[in-house]
């Protein structure tokens, strides 16, 4: 009797867990539009420090987590300045090449004097 019910119970448990995961994902807007997704991301970011604090207390590690230093790095700014530098180098390359060649010739002339 128990041997017959057990597979059904196992399957029911698995379906419940999978269904619950799907429901949570759908309910928190993770599968919706991009605005819903960014709202969910904001909520998650705001919820992390208190959750970490709770877990630290639970494990008895009352040590203060060092505050994450705010890094003043903007990928957009870095990328833009990189592009500008590359393009300006490329555009000045012929002039610089001529200049360096002339310098080289001058140096060789000075050597042979």
């Amino acid at each position, binding site marked *: 009797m128990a041997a017959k019910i057990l597979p059904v119970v196992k399957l029911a448990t698995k379906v419940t867990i*999978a269904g619950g*995961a799907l429901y949570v994902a759908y309910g928190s807007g*993770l*599968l919706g539009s*991009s605005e819903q997704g*960014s709202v*969910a*991301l904001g909520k998650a970011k705001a919820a992390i420090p208190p959750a970490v604090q709770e877990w630290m207390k639970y494990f008895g590690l009352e040590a203060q987590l060092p505050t994450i230093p705010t890094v003043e790095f903007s990928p957009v700014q870095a990328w833009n300045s990189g592009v500008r530098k590359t393009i300006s180098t490329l555009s000045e390359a012929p002039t610089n090449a001529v200049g360096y060649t002339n310098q080289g010739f001058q140096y060789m002339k000075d050597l042979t004097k």
Partner: protein
Amino acid sequence: MSEKELGKKWDRCLADGAIKLGTGLGLGIVFSVLFFKRHTWPISFGSGTGLGMAYANCQNDLRSFYMLHSSEKEQ
């Protein structure tokens, strides 16, 4: 569409892509462990579905500027 608006749309697109990839991966792992005997394909399927949903959202978002609303069409 102004530059600022376009930039915000792209930011939303990337964030949405990351979220949906993570969600798809997570759901794929859950399904793989529970139903498919820890095979890899549900994980790949889930991640791919997530990325696809994000791509569709992004496409819709970027095109929405050029779409006329049905109420404006009647005028």
